[in-house]
């Protein structure tokens, strides 16, 4: 059978892209020796930085969950003047170059800005602290959380909420007894997306806080100081641990077949 040229084009482009993504990753994962992997894993600095990356990004995901969920619900359910602008503002952190994010955050947190002075009075500094890193991670991760959860809320029929209200539930009652049980999976997915984005952040973090060292900064440091061989095992461990965590979360949020 003759295969159409257009079908060929689609298949070859797809294969090219898959190869482009997978080959470098596979190559990197396979290159370090087992001994190097074990040795790296026993390095307290490495473990600390990976743990810090994971926990700081989890904190960013939690903050996104608490603040982002009501916002995503508002965007999914209401139309109001300026909504499009608001949605664009939510997407801004995706588009801004990463170092610019860091500089922007520092410029309001500095001593010359009233917010910076206020934060200082409260004992909060962003420069060179874990707080600063979590702030950066939340900044870059929020759009992913909000957009995912907004789509999740939009998929739940307003009519189900309306019926709940007509049966006597208040606005919050309808949310917690109908909307939330139907939407929590999208919240888990949103938090995974937010965490993934937060863990991968480098450019903004390196400006706000080189220390305490997150994994991406450590990988960069080892690469510039000692070369590719020394940075690879850290990168591989970071990938493996993240993969494990995300699979775990995904597993708990898989939709049972009966409710599809």
């Amino acid at each position, binding site marked *: 059978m003759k295969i159409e040229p257009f079908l060929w084009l689609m298949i070859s482009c797809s294969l090219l892209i898959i190869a482009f993504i997978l080959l470098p990753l596979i190559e990197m994962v396979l290159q370090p020796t087992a001994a190097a992997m074990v040795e790296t894993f026993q390095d307290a600095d490495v473990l600390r930085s990976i743990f810090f990356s994971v926990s700081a990004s989890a904190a960013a995901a939690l903050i996104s969950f608490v603040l982002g969920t009501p916002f995503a619900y508002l965007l999914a359910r209401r139309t109001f003047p300026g909504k499009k602008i608001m949605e664009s503002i939510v997407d801004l952190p995706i588009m801004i170059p990463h170092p610019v994010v860091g500089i922007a955050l520092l410029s309001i947190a500095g001593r010359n800005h009233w917010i910076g002075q206020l934060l200082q009075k409260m004992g909060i500094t962003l420069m060179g602290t874990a707080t600063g890193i979590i702030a950066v991670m939340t900044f870059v991760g929020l759009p992913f959380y909000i957009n995912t959860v907004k789509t999740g809320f939009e998929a739940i029929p307003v009519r189900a909420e*309306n*019926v709940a209200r007509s049966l006597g539930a208040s606005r919050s009652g309808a949310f917690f007894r109908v909307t939330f049980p*139907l939407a929590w999976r999208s919240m888990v997915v949103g938090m995974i997306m937010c965490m993934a984005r937060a863990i991968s952040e480098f450019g903004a973090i390196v400006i706000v806080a080189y220390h305490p060292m997150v994994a991406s900064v450590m990988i960069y440091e080892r690469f510039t100081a000692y070369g590719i061989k020394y940075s690879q095992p850290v990168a591989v461990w970071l990938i493996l641990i993240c993969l494990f965590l995300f699979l775990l979360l995904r597993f708990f949020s898989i939709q049972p077949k009966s409710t599809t």
Partner: protein
Amino acid sequence: MIQLRDLSVKLPGFTLKEINLTVEKGEFFTLLGPTGAGKTLILESISGMIPIHRGTITINGKDVSKMPPERRGVGIVYQDSALFPHLNVRKNIFFGLRYHGKTVRQSGKALDAIIEWFSLEHLLDRSVVNLSGGEKQRVAMARALAVDPSVLLLDEPLSALDPGFREEIRDILKTLHEETGITVLMVTHDFVEAHYLAQRTAVLNAGLIEQAGTVADVFYRPSTPFVARFVGMKNIFPAKFDKDVAWVDDLQFTIPHSDNRFRKYVAIRPEDICVSRTNISKIATNIFNATVMRIFNKGIFSDIRLDVSGTVFQAILPTSALYRMNFAEGETVCITFTPERVHVI
């Protein structure tokens, strides 16, 4: 009783204009109209889901215009049932109890009666996701009635159902209304449903009520060309009037004697036109020779288009009669209709 006074709702791109409507206590009332006429909007303003711009909504004498939905005591059943997919049938039906200070035990007997009435006993532990369309609507109705609402709003409850289920649910609605006497306001675009279920009806078009009255009144005496078309009067012609005569182009119709000064149209139901080879009717007026243009077989009935000197009439015949008469396209036949069947608008 539901009373709407000068109800106006403004949405981007759509306005409900000064709707005045009264649904009497214990009445089954239908709101008719094509898609996009604003029928569902009226239901949603009564149930409090959308804010109203002006006017008042009264339920059983109480002004509920500014009340939140949960305090209005309005039961609502949607076309797609809107069941809660994460809860089983039992939990769906019991959902509202806690908000009315009831426990399952307290209202046990009443609940059992509702569940039995809708024949849901064997489904209680099932997931609502895999129910049939008819079962879903039965659960949705049981859920609405479990909290004893003062009025029941139905948003095209039969539209999404297969024909078999549609008849089943329609019969359930009729019996339910007869046995409980609950006030029902149902939205539909199907006049047959209104005929079967309702005492009174209102026809809505582009956010305005075109006509309200008993179902028979609206069906036989439509007051606007839109309503006439909506209730299936296929033959609507602009006409000039002179006492008991109407002129449609060069055709002269004898019409009932009444004040026809401000009338603009004549309308004749397609089933009121008699088609035959020779004039078999005893009346001497409204007899025309017509050419059979097309015949459309629609199952039990057939549409037949007839040309009378350039004016196209549409008649309906039982398909069996059509076979018996063996009309052919292009054949010249005779059409008649009695003067009292000519409706003036």
